[in-house]
């Protein structure tokens, strides 16, 4: 992730404003590809749900709504702290930024722990990706999402370290914005996964 845009003093001497705008556009393009990466899974979901409605209805009961809902709330909160982090550095509040980054990371970790138990629970009940199409979708969708959470946590940790070193200020916070955009996308995808997988009625 860091590849994108930390180049303030890049050797090609691009104007910092152009640099900033370019980096943000680049990040949005990257998010577009992420959307289509998940897109294949959403398409598979749509097709198989229409094909096997009963299977989806029956098997989704194995999923734990409460954990799903808690994780939704956790991610939404993490999105808030992330947004607040960006807002604080825009106003030059460096300490606040570090605090919000830390909170975001913690929420991310809580999400991961929940998922760990959720998967463990499934395996105990001998539910695997090969169990059925529904669970294949469940594991692939949440698994790919989990990988993104993991990547996000790593990126945010790197940003936290840089932030603690005082690298960012109201004049330079591009990486924070980009990290934030990425993190919000992770939240955004979960916003769809939650009703699609856990709340089939």
């Amino acid at each position, binding site marked *: 992730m860091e590849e994108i845009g930390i180049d303030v003093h890049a050797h090609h001497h691009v104007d910092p404003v152009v640099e900033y705008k370019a980096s943000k556009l680049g990040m949005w393009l990257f998010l577009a590809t992420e*959307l289509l990466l998940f897109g294949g899974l959403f*398409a598979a979901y749509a097709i198989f749900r229409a094909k096997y409605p009963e299977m989806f209805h029956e098997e989704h009961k194995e999923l734990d709504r409460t954990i799903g809902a808690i994780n939704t709330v956790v991610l939404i909160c993490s999105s808030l702290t992330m947004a607040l982090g960006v807002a604080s550095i825009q106003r030059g509040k460096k300490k606040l930024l570090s605090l919000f980054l830390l909170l975001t990371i913690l929420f991310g970790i809580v999400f991961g722990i929940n998922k760990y138990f959720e998967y463990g629970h499934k395996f105990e009940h001998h539910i695997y990706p090969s169990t059925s199409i529904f669970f294949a979708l469940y594991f692939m969708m949440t698994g790919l999402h989990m990988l993104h959470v993991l990547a996000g946590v790593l990126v945010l940790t790197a940003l936290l370290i840089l932030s603690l070193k005082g690298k960012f200020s109201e004049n330079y916070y591009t990486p924070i914005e980009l990290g934030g955009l990425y993190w919000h996308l992770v939240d955004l995808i979960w916003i769809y996964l939650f009703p699609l997988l856990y709340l089939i009625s």
Partner: protein
Amino acid sequence: METKAHIEEHHVGYTTYVLVWLALMVLTGITVWVSYLHFGVFNIVVALLIASIKASLVALYFMHLKFEDKTTWIFVLYPIVLLALLIGLTAVDVFFRTTP
């Protein structure tokens, strides 16, 4: 193209963020509640509608899409169109197959 070393940017305030967060929490509550009601096929429609409202809130405010330029908007909207086409046209295949 920009030449001035000056970032003209809209800064969203803390309160806006908190309000958006509140809305997201409320919508999450609604979507769980609604899933216990029975509208038949409309359940999924409602669920997706709520999810889309939530997603738009995140994109517009948390991600500042509201304040981005046209280029960014195009590169956000076109992939969504493509995704719809991927699903839609594949469905045209899968659900119109004739059996002998």
